[in-house]
């Protein structure tokens, strides 16, 4: 007998990635030989080595997850649905480091027989300081390839965040956080197209990050603000707008926590006693803006900030802070007024209302949108269909499908559990 396990309801190897959010899966018998019954009881379990990821199971859309799951599977090939989620606190460190095994006990006196298995990865965004050397190298290599000497797809991401018209689509109004969530996801999916085992790490800017500012990772700045890399680091070939290299002059000791910005707990209080997004989004000034101006160089100013790849790790932390605040205060539901700033006194500009599509993924290039829309639609994923090729602001709130499972965007943070 053989069974087939489909992760994210797909046979594609590129779909075998899960987060803390439940991923829809299915199992079916592909070879019924060895049994005469109309259905067999299959037990699913997660097998992984030390320091590898782990997954848990449940049968339906509600209820607790468990380490094993028993399913009655018809032998006629009909699929049976179930859900898999990463076990919180146990993310993967490599692609395929978790295996789901399917076993059937054919007779009471015999041990369960392995009838199918699949490997997968609990792909989670982690702190730069907790990446393994291999994870770090895979990420840096993928980022180097995405830039490809300034001739790669990365230039689109740089162009999305350059002109004042473009910047107005994403800053200084309610859509700041949703727009950047989509922006990061688009970039992350492009990195995953190069190496599917990569997840965007975050730079926890309110803490010391001694591993990040090293020659083998995001480089060390010399006295003139030029970032130096090791000879084996592909970021030494980084180029944007025809400019070779990265300019970044830290105004603080990179082995210590930077001064002058709100820490995580202070940031969570910005929403006030009623935890309003309208107030919380002022984190765009501090800690977000304050983190940008910890350095001279590209990252210091809005038009040049994404020329430094550190931008994306900084914003990944900004997004993590929002995600954590959302979890603490149940702010995933767009119909909850406090979850978004829908009615500011002067109204929201286009691109900042819940129902608005977001530039540039919507391809709209007529005023008041910018005159060009670099990069096309948002990159697709084999793991989920959300947020779609032309996301709206509202599509970016329920990022791990806490309210609507179909809204799951396919990423999670190592310290933000599923709601």
């Amino acid at each position: 007998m053989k069974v087939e396990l489909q992760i994210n309801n797909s046979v594609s190897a590129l779909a075998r990635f899960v987060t803390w959010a439940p991923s829809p899966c299915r199992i079916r018998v592909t070879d019924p030989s060895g049994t005469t019954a109309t259905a067999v009881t299959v037990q699913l379990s997660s097998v992984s080595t030390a320091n590898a990821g782990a997954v848990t199971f449940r049968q339906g859309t509600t209820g607790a997850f468990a380490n094993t799951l028993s399913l009655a599977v018809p032998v006629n090939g009909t699929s049976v649905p179930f859900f898999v989620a990463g076990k919180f606190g146990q993310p993967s460190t490599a692609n395929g480091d978790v295996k789901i095994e399917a076993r059937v006990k054919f007779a009471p006196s015999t041990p369960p027989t392995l009838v199918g298995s699949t490997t997968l990865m609990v792909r989670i965004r982690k702190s730069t300081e907790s990446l393994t050397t291999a994870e770090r190298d895979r990420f840096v290599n993928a980022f180097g390839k995405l830039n490809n000497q300034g001739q790669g797809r990365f230039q689109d991401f740089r162009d999305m965040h350059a002109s004042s018209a473009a910047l107005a689509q994403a800053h200084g109004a309610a859509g700041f956080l949703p727009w950047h969530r989509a922006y990061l996801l688009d970039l992350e999916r492009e990195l995953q197209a190069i190496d599917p085992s990569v997840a965007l790490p975050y730079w926890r800017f309110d803490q010391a990050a001694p591993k990040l500012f090293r020659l083998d990772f995001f480089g060390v700045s010399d006295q003139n603000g030029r970032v130096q890399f090791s000879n084996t680091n592909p970021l030494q070939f980084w180029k944007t707008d025809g400019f070779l290299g990265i300019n970044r002059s830290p105004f603080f000791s990179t082995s210590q926590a930077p001064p002058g910005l709100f820490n995580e707990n202070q940031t969570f209080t910005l929403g006030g006693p009623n935890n309003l997004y309208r107030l919380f989004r002022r984190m765009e000034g501090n800690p977000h803006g304050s983190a940008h101006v910890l350095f001279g160089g590209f990252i210091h100013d809005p038009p040049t900030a994404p020329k430094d790849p550190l931008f994306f790790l900084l914003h990944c932390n900004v997004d993590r802070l929002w995600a954590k605040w959302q979890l603490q205060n149940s702010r995933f539901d767009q119909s909850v007024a406090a979850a978004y700033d829908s009615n500011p006194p002067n109204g929201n500009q286009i691109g900042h209302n819940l129902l608005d599509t977001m530039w540039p993924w919507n391809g709209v290039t007529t005023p008041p949108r910018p005159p060009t829309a670099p990069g096309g639609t948002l990159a697709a994923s084999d793991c989920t269909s959300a947020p779609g090729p032309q996301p709206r602001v509202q599509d970016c709130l329920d990022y791990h499908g806490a309210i609507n499972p179909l809204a799951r965007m396919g990423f999670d943070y190592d310290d933000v559990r599923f709601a």
Partner: protein
Amino acid sequence: MPKKSAKPTRPQVRATETSLSVATDPKGRVADRVTAMAEASMTICEDDQSFRAVINVLRDPKEPFEVRNAALQALGAAAFRVIEFAPCRSDYIATLRALAEDRDPTLRRRALGTLAREKDGYAQKKLIEGLKNPDVALVSPEKALQFLSYDPHAEAYAIAREFVKKPPNDEAKAEALRLLAADPKSAPLFEKVLRDKDELRDNRQLAASALYSLNPGKFQKHARAMLLDKSEFEDIQATSLTALAQFGDQEAVGKDEPLLKGIQKLGAKTRSAKYKKNARQFLARHGR
């Protein structure tokens, strides 16, 4: 039933008005004012009065450097709130232009840096003037060249070539080379720097990166030659190998027996674990 734990006390963030009044109080302690200025960055652009108060501190040469610098940082952070900052923007740029000629060199450099990244014509003119005439220079030549590279153009290229020929220091030469990395006409210059074993290693590595982006075919040819050159420096060979591994024409490289043997030798002779690993991974990719 488990006992309910006491609700943790929330860390306090001061009210904006309090932060602003502390930040702009000339009688306050410098350290307190710096901290308060960072807090105020959250809301500086939400009303004209707050913005004016911070601008006034920044423009006042009698204020302590630390407080003025914190004001500059706070405005820089607030500038990320593009839509809300729009009414303040022209005054912000005007203040930066004034600051570009401030007597404090750090404030001058930081203001010019932001203006250069905004491709500000006034700043570019001042930077070029300073490179042509050191008596009127607002920043060091290496910083001026670096700032001009944010928006390279013909006049900047011409000056950069002059600085490559007659650099006042190594830093200025490196920045001039970096500026020229955007200039397709400079590919022959980078070939020369790359193959010159008497040139600074940093400049040779910079030339490798520049040439690779200006003319990948040419670079691949030189990278191959350097990997096969027994007298070449190991770090230059490692840079060449990284470029070939990451961006090279893998089909051509995979068929190049002498090159693969050269990489085998590099992997065998090097004492660097990283270079060994790189060579091993490269060869493994090509079935060795």
